[in-house]
């Protein structure tokens, strides 16, 4: 994938397929330690141990487990070729957590890309799923929690165009303050 944010969008599809109704996405950019961390956790149906062991292998996945495909192997490869790695924790009936990290300055690391578009895309087509998105840059943090937005919106669906454009502007402003005023 050209952007890591596209990997995030892709991995979240697994959570959606696993019937999660709460997905937390956490990005940590730590320039001082040269690390980029992406963590995606859901409360979906989870996997057993055997499946967790096999899932990074693109050739083990088959038709009967169709919800999993190349998504994880591709992200895993993206991590390992940038001096990072991926850890998957999962429990049946509880959910799955995917943690991956990269050497921030590695020449092969794809740019994080447009996280705003990724978050909006997820919310747009899955208004019933709650998303908690946290982005930490050098210790400064921004957050978008759809549960808080839903509390205010009541019966108005959060994928209404006006609400989506509010979220887009909100995230844009948050990112500007996060990166110290530089436009993204």
């Amino acid at each position, binding site marked *: 994938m050209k952007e890591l944010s*596209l990997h995030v969008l892709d991995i979240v599809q697994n959570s959606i397929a696993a019937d999660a109704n709460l997905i937390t996405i956490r990005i940590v950019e730590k320039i001082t330690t040269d690390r980029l961390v992406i963590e995606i956790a859901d409360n979906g149906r989870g996997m057993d141990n055997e499946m967790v062991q096999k899932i990074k292998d693109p050739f083990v996945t088959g038709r009967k487990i169709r*919800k999993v495909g190349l*998504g994880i192997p591709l992200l895993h490869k993206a991590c390992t070729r940038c001096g990072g790695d991926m850890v998957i924790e999962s429990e049946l009936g509880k959910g799955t957590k995917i943690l991956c990290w990269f050497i921030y300055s590695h020449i092969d690391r794809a740019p994080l890309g447009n996280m705003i578009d990724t978050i909006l895309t997820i919310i747009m087509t899955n208004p019933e799923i709650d998303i908690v998105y946290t982005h930490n840059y050098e210790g400064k943090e921004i957050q978008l929690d759809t549960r*808080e937005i839903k509390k*205010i919106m009541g019966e108005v*669906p959060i994928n209404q*165009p*006006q*609400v989506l454009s*509010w979220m887009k502007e909100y995230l844009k402003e948050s990112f500007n303050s996060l990166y110290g005023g530089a436009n993204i």
Partner: protein
Amino acid sequence: MKSIKDLEEIRKRTLDTINLRKDQSGIRIVVGMATCGIAAGARPVLLSIMEEIEKNGLSDVIVAQTGCIGLCKLEPIVEVYKPGEEKVTYVKMNPSKAKRIINEHVMKGKIIQEYTVGAEEK
């Protein structure tokens, strides 16, 4: 700065229009959002569809996502379902092609044959 207060305002403004919108056109647009679709550019396609829908006030059109349809090399794929009509599958989409689909097919009922899977496989 955007604040939570703005959301209260949006809620008040949209509540009325939501109640008015009981008559659904039943048009559904489905975008393939599996690994293949995302890698091929489904995200900008979906966002441009939403943008065009908002611009033209087509609030009764439903946009949804689906997994891998099995035609990975033809992604991004967009399917248009209109009640009483056969499903139309558009392949190798990009944001500007997707806009044309909204303007011509969804709004005027004119299928863009050259973008369909049928035209691609000839």
